[in-house]
């Protein structure tokens, strides 16, 4: 009995309590939606099953497999090259290769379509200056291969970031040993780098996969039917919430399956600092033709994934800025930055608490919390939005009773306030912040925490005096990744925005959905600029982090 109590005490402290509360808050909106998963299937569902479901699955899976494959190839190769070798501009590419993350795939999609279509810059020039008319087939990007191209261009940084930081910090001894033992670069890459970095690779690619599953902007614009378009079609097009939720549920099952697979592939391997000094990998210098071919590869890729779309957008900005830019536009920037900062801060705090709790107490209870954080990331933004709306409306009903009791007129307070939107961001993106912080904790292990505890400091004191200082980089990294994600977020913001509240992303959508791509360029470029700036800061932060 005493043992049991002691065990409970060690599990239930204030950290447990806070973790518990946060987790409940996060799981509630999803639960409100999920209860309908078991509702009886109706006529629409039969219709969807008969005519559409197979197509959705094939399209979604095709997109995921190929995007996953290509992002791994490009992300891992790039990460290996920038950490293991020096070549011209190598220091720039270390963070420059992350920049494409600043371009939301939906903006990338319409920009590339704008470049390639009949009135786009390429065809126009060929036609007007060289009198060449081309077959549209070669310039058609609005299909599945086109979508894979877009996703790969703008999502590979997820794989790149995680793999690169792993290789930089963890692998030096193994790789240097391989080099000493006479392995060629290629052999080292295949036999050592790939196997040891598989945890990082899988972590990165699972983010890519979730992004692809959740994407609505690109596939909608390109007219590809996937799970996310189907959810919208059933819910809003057929007015059938049940079928929509069944689709979302099916998607969730797939996602959970992927996450389990990720855990299995990761295995029990954990690499954490065994000494207090982690020696970064010493890069080798590339010489001769190798140097130039690597450089040109990087330059080409960087051009496609960042420069070309940015330049095109700038040209459109030049065409339209006089109509678009006014004081109202400054509000947009302020709104976007404001919600993104608050949202990111809340996410980082929540993630720190849950991650710290779950790493220190190993019971099922704490592990359960750490899994919950991923839930929001695996659900489409629109589904979360409706769940959050339902939750807040229910809260408001309670408040209304209170209001009437005091004698005020019944009204919506919570669900028309910005707190609803920010709460939804927390549910949606907690996983992003959590993953970064968790990997930070994983890297430092528990040795230092244990030492501090042995010396008599409490968990909380240890947390502030030891733990948080060791994972400063991961915290900053998590903050910035979430910040960029919120800045780019669209479907959720559209549903939950309060009156007269617009962000850069919703403004972009308004023009783009009206087929006014040129007008959309101004807000797009500002999103890209702010995100790029954040990524640069991220790089600076990580650079400073003691190695």
């Amino acid at each position: 009995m005493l043992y049991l109590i002691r065990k409970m005490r060690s599990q239930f402290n204030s950290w447990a309590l806070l973790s518990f509360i946060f987790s409940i808050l996060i799981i509630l909106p999803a639960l409100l939606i999920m209860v309908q998963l078991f509702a009886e299937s109706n006529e629409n569902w039969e219709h969807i099953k008969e005519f559409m479901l197979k197509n959705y699955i094939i399209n979604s899976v095709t997109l995921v497999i190929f995007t996953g494959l290509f992002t791994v190839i490009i992300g891992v190769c790039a990460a290996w090259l920038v950490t293991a070798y020096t070549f011209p501009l190598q220091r720039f590419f270390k963070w420059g290769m992350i920049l494409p993350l600043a371009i939301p795939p939906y903006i990338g999609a319409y920009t590339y379509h704008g470049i390639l279509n009949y009135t786009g810059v390429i065809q126009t020039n060929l036609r007007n200056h060289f009198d060449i008319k081309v077959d549209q087939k070669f310039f058609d990007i609005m299909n599945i291969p086109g979508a894979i191209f877009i996703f790969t261009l703008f999502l590979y940084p997820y794989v790149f970031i995680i793999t690169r930081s792993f290789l930089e910090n963890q692998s030096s001894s193994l790789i240097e040993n391989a080099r000493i033992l006479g392995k060629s670069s290629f052999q080292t890459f295949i036999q050592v780098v790939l196997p040891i970095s598989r945890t990082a690779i899988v972590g990165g690619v699972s983010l890519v996969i979730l992004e692809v599953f959740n994407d609505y902007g690109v596939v909608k614009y390109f007219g590809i039917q996937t799970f996310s378009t189907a959810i919208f079609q059933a819910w809003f097009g057929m007015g059938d919430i049940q079928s929509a939720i069944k689709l979302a549920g099916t998607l969730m099952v797939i996602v959970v399956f992927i996450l389990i697979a990720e855990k299995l592939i990761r295995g029990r391997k954990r690499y954490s600092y065994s000494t207090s000094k982690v020696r970064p990998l010493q890069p080798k210098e590339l010489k001769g033709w190798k140097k130039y071919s690597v450089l040109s590869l990087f330059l080409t890729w960087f051009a496609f994934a960042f420069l070309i779309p940015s330049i095109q957008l700038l040209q459109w900005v030049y065409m339209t800025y006089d109509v678009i830019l006014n004081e109202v536009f400054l509000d947009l920037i302020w709104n976007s930055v404001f919600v993104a900062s608050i949202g990111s801060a809340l996410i980082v705090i929540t993630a720190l608490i849950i991650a710290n709790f779950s790493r220190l107490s190993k019971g099922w209870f704490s592990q359960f919390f750490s899994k919950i954080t991923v839930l929001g990331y695996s659900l489409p933004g629109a589904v979360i939005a409706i769940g959050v709306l339902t939750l807040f409306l229910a809260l408001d009903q309670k408040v209304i009773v209170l209001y009437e009791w005091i004698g005020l007129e019944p009204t919506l307070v919570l669900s028309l306030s910005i707190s609803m939107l920010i709460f939804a961001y927390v549910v949606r993106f907690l996983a992003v912040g959590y993953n970064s912080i968790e990997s930070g904790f994983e890297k430092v292990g528990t040795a230092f925490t244990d030492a501090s505890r042995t010396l008599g400091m409490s968990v909380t004191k240890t947390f502030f005096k030891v733990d948080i200082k060791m994972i400063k980089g991961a915290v900053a990294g998590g903050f910035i990744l979430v910040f960029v994600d919120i800045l780019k977020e669209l479907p959720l913001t559209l549903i939950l925005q309060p009156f007269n509240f617009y962000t850069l992303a919703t403004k972009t959508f308004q023009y783009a959905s009206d087929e006014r791509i040129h007008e959309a360029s101004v807000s797009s470029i500002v999103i890209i600029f702010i995100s790029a700036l954040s990524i640069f800061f991220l790089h600076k932060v990580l650079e400073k982090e003691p190695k």
Partner: protein
Amino acid sequence: MHKKNLFTTIIMVLIVAVIMAGCGKSNDGASSGNDKAASKEEKNSGEVNLYTSRHYDVDDQIFADFTKETGIKVNVIKGKEDELIERLSREGKATKGDLFFTSDAGRLHWAKEKDLLQSVESETLNKNIPENLADKDKQWYGLTKRARVIVYSKDKVDPSELSTYEALTEDKWKGKVLIRSSENIYNQSLVSSFISLNGKEEAKNWAEGIVKNMARDPQGGDRDQAKGIVAGEGDVAIMNSYYFGQMLNSEDPEEVKVAKQLSVFFPNQETTGTHINISGIGVTKYAKNKENAIKLMEYLSSADVQKVFAEANYEYPVNKEVEPSELLKSWGEFKEQDLNLSELGENNADAVKILNEVSWK
């Protein structure tokens, strides 16, 4: 005993924490509640809250003019039509939205079906807006009108070859018809109108025929269909009239060039008429500012505003007193489908099913 104490403590702490979290939240709410209080003072001079899926800059301009003229402030949430409907229905009685404004009669009807709108009697509206462009029960009114027309290549197609939407399903047009995806509401409403006029079977045959004759898998928006013609992918495209107007007046000279090689044809003039749709507006069932809402609707239907409103987006005004813009007049007058637009909504679910069944992507 010890254990029980522990539990009580935990539960107590939990409750306190939840309450505190709640307070934190409602503090948050309170700050925006203060905003609300501030706007409540303004309410004496008046305000009106609008949910809209239209996102033309001219709308904002007109709302600003309305405020100047009447002192009534217009608060706006812009979103996608279906999600705004979902939001309205979830907010129920407590909603702050007074008006719902969207660009498709089918969606307006749907909002009505979900019991989100209320009937509005107004002589001004009855006078300004033709009966067939408003709901049978006056729950919504059309404000601007657009036609879904056939656009054709001046080089490759002689307009005498064109006649009806149905004719585009003939073998002659195999591989030549450009039209966007079935997910698009304008196509759904087009099929809905055929269900009303010709019955489900005919509507399905038509959709099947179009899929068979498509120049390529549906992709892109309406403008992309027009570009597809000039790029040589097809000969004719079905698109909304105002997109064509926008292209003719685009700030991108290449788009203008494309549009100049094309021309507009109003189909089914000898038979059932060209398909039209509207942007329309309705007062929500639980509107808190009903009077102001009606004032805004009347304002939007008035002759002066109709002129600006319709012209800015190359749409047709619904107010018969107002002439369409020079450009639209140059396309000529045309016979419209003789249909109460409510039916577009009534048939929407069937239309979506038909489109899925014939594998219209």
